[in-house]
């Protein structure tokens, strides 16, 4: 275990391992002494030792009298950046999807087309209704009573004839 403490203080463990070793050190006074001792060795090698044997114990005694701190968990900076990055990515993705749909609608999506089936039977043909000869005489005689129209020629008569023919059929 002391080897893991050595690696922990050198920052050579991954996060899960480090959390595990921290938990073990906290739960075992002997390991906690090793943690302190290894730091003392490092400070001494760097000629920075300030020997104060009771300081940690004194601080611990005062901490015991302190109300326990309960703070909301700090959001690591990396997590903050990730949140902003994901928000930006989502926005960009949404814009891209909308733009893509728009472009597809304009340039790529074929306009709806009806199937063109050449069915001879279904082709429109001018109606050919045999008229009695006396119809022409009748039309000429009643020309002035036909619906007024700016269109001259036979068109008004065609309409009249059609209506008349339909009425006559019944």
């Amino acid at each position: 275990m002391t080897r893991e403490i050595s690696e922990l203080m050198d920052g050579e463990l991954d996060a899960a391992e480090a959390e595990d070793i921290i938990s073990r050190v906290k739960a075992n006074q002997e390991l906690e002494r090793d943690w302190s001792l290894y730091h003392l060795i490092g400070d001494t090698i760097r000629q920075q030792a300030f020997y104060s044997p009771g300081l940690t114990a004194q601080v611990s005694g005062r901490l015991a009298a302190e109300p326990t701190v309960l703070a909301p968990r700090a959001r690591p900076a990396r997590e903050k950046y990730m949140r902003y990055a994901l928000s930006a990515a989502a926005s960009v993705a949404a814009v891209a999807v909308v733009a893509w749909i728009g472009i597809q609608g304009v340039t790529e999506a074929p306009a709806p087309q009806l199937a063109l089936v050449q069915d001879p039977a279904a082709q429109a043909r001018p109606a050919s209704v045999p008229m009695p000869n006396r119809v022409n005489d009748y039309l000429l005689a009643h020309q002035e009573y036909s619906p007024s129209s700016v269109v001259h020629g036979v068109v008004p008569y065609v309409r009249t004839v059609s209506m008349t023919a339909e009425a006559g059929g019944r």
Partner: protein
Amino acid sequence: MGDREIDQALVERAQRGDKRAFEMLVSKYQRKLARLLSRFIRDPAEIEDVSQEAFIKAYRALPSFRGDSAFYTWLYRIGINTAKNYLVAMGRRAPTSTEFDSEEAETFEDAEHLRDVNTPENEMMSRQIAETVNETLAQLPEELRTAITLREIEGMSYEDIANIMNCPIGTVRSRIFRAREAIAERLRPLLGTSKDKRW
């Protein structure tokens, strides 16, 4: 998980009510903080008092620590402010803000001055500790001494040390641990083994 991340993990535990996690930070940084305070407080007993006060203030202020800076940089500022308040209360000149810049926090070194502010008893013990460490270090096999020196003085990663020493990282891990443990074995009798004794 680097040094800063380890501190952050301990801080987050302390923020969730784990006082022992905060004590691990005290164990780790007490000498560094005392060294800082010794720059402008001469009396060793006062340094201890102000160190204690700074740690307690830091503990109380933990809810405001968001991890935007390194824990020690934050502790450094609290230490400086605690020392200023102490000196003002004692009617002595407090250091100006330019004397202690937070940017200096990570590189602060002042070992020579520190020797002058230990109490006679602690000074003697500090000397014995230093002698024991240095003697043991000198007696270590060359590869162990080099490995721990590169780590503790140069602050190099295991990977960099492995490249320099031309050996696998696993060997570096082993060498550094064996060096530490060899020194620790010599120090334990000197420091005693009482449960409440921590350094």
